[in-house]
C-alpha cells in the first residue's frame, strides 16, 4: 500500500491525519451538549435586569459567557418546541399566529423581541391575560421556551431552528422563518387591538 511509485502519497496521508488530528483537537475544546446545566448558572438566569417599562433589559453576564445558549443552541430550541406544546401555549397563541393571545408571527412584539422581555413575559405574566409561569416551569425551561418563541417570530432563519413537528401542518416550519413567509404572502391586515399599550 505504501509502495514507491508516487511521492505524493505521504503528503496525502499527512494531510489526512492532520485534518483528523486537528478536528480531534477541536472536539476536545468543544463543549458537549449540556444536558444538566450547572445549578448556579441556572440560578443566574433568574437575575436578568429588566427596564422599568418591562420591555428591554439585559441578561445575566453568564448568559453571554455561555454563548447565548437559549437562542443559538439547537437542543435548547427543540426543548422549547416541546415545552410550547406541553405547557399548552397553543390554547392562546395557536401555532404562533395567535388566538386569544397575541400572534408571534405578525412582526409586532408588544414588549419587544428581546430574550429578556420574552422571558419576563412568561415568568411574570403580562396584563390582559398572560399568566405567570413562574410556579409551573423552572427558569431554565422558561429560557428554552422563550428562545423558541423568539425563533418562530424571527424574520431571518436561524441555523439552529427546529424543523416541523410530527403533527398537523398549519404553517411553515420554524426553520423556514414562518414569520417572513407569512408576511410576504400578504398583508396580515391591521394589527388587531390587543389592548392599550403597556
Amino acid at each position, binding site marked *: 500500500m505504501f509502495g514507491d511509485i508516487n511521492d505524493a502519497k505521504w503528503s496525502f496521508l499527512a494531510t489526512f491525519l492532520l485534518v483528523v488530528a486537528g478536528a480531534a483537537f477541536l472536539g476536545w475544546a468543544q463543549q458537549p451538549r449540556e444536558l444538566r446545566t450547572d445549578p448556579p448558572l441556572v440560578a443566574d438566569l433568574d437575575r436578568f435586569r429588566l427596564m422599568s417599562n418591562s420591555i428591554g433589559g439585559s441578561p445575566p453576564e453568564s448568559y453571554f459567557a455561555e454563548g447565548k445558549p437559549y437562542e443559538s443552541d439547537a437542543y435548547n430550541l427543540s426543548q422549547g418546541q416541546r415545552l410550547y406544546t406541553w405547557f399548552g401555549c397553543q390554547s392562546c397563541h395557536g401555532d404562533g399566529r395567535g388566538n386569544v393571545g397575541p400572534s408571534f408571527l405578525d412582526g409586532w412584539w408588544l414588549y419587544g423581541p428581546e430574550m429578556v422581555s420574552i422571558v419576563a413575559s412568561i415568568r411574570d405574566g403580562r396584563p390582559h391575560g398572560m399568566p405567570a409561569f413562574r*410556579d*409551573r416551569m423552572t427558569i431554565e*425551561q422558561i429560557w428554552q421556551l422563550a428562545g423558541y418563541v423568539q425563533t418562530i417570530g424571527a424574520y431571518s432563519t436561524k441555523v439552529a431552528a427546529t424543523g416541523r413537528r410530527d403533527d398537523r401542518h398549519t404553517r411553515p416550519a420554524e426553520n423556514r422563518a414562518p414569520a417572513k413567509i407569512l408576511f410576504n404572502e400578504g398583508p396580515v391586515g391591521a394589527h388587531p387591538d390587543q389592548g392599550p399599550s403597556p
Partner: protein
Amino acid sequence: MRTARILQLSIIAAVAGCSGNQSALDPQGAPAIHVEHLIIGITVICAAVWLLVMIVLGWALLRKRPSDSSQPGERSLTISVGSAVAATVIIITGLTIASFYTTRGIGLPENAALTITVRGQQWWWQVNYADPDPALSFQTANEIHIPVGQDVRVQLESADVVHSFWVPSLAGKQDLVPGRSNSLLLRAERPGIYRGQCAEFCGLQHTHMAMMVVADKPADYERWIAAQRQNGVMPTDPDAVAGKVAFLSKPCAACHTVRGTPATGTTGPDLTHIGSRKTIAAGLLETTRGSLAAWIADPQTLKPGNNMPMVPLTSVELRDISAYMESLK
C-alpha cells in the same frame, strides 16, 4: 428425542445459569415458552450442522494425501456437494415449517379478556387500564399488573418515537410505532415480577426505559385494580402534608397528575399511586423515600437528558415532597 432433551437441558444449564428475571431463557409465559422451545431446537440443529462442517473442513485440510498426483474424481465431488446442498434444503425447509408453527402458537387469540394500552414515551411507559365506565379507568406508569394464567392483550402505541415493548420472560418484543397501533399477547403462568426494557433505540435515555410486569394471583390482581382506581390518598404524616402543599405550588403539578388534587399535568407519569410501585424513573431506582429524594433533587445526573427538570427546592421542601410521594400508596 431423549438425547435432544438432555442436550437442551445442558445448554440451559450452561447458558441460563445466571439469567435473572429478564431473560429469553427463563420463560414464564406461554408465548415465551413456545419461542424458547424453538430457540433450543434451532440451536441444537445448527450447532450439529456447524460441527459437521468443521469436521469436514478439518478432514479436507489435514487428510493424508496419496503420494501420486492423481486427482480425485470430479464426479464423486459433485455427488458430495450435491447431497450436501440437498441436505441443506431439507433442513432449511424443516426449520421454516417449525418457525411457521411457532408463529401460529404465539399469535393473539381472538378475544382476550383484558386489554391494557401501553403508550411509549421518551423515556417511560404510560399504562392505561381502560374501562367502559370512565370512572373505573385509570392510568399508571412503568408497572403493569396482569392476572396469572390469563391471556392479556397489550395494545402498543407511541407518543413520540419508535419504542419496543419487550418482557423476555413472558413474550417476544413488539414495536410501538407512532401513527400505528400494534398489539401483543402477554401471559404469565405463575406469579412473579418480570422486568422488561425498551428494545428499540429511542434517544438519550433508551438505556433507562424499563418496566415491571407483575403477575398477580386473581385475588391480588382485583385488590390492586381496586386500589389503583382510588384517588391519591390524603397524607396524614406532617411531612407529607407539607409535601403535598409544596408539590402543588411548585412546577411538579404542571407535568404530573395526582388524582383527587389540583395536579393534573399529563406530560410526566401519573403519580397517584407512585408509592405503591416497585421502581421510579422507569426502572432506574427502587422506590424508597431516599431514592425519591435523590431523583427529585437531581434527575439530570441520574438520567441525563430525561424530560424532568431540576426544580430548585430547599432541603425541607425536598424532604416533604419525597415523603408525600412515598405516602401515595
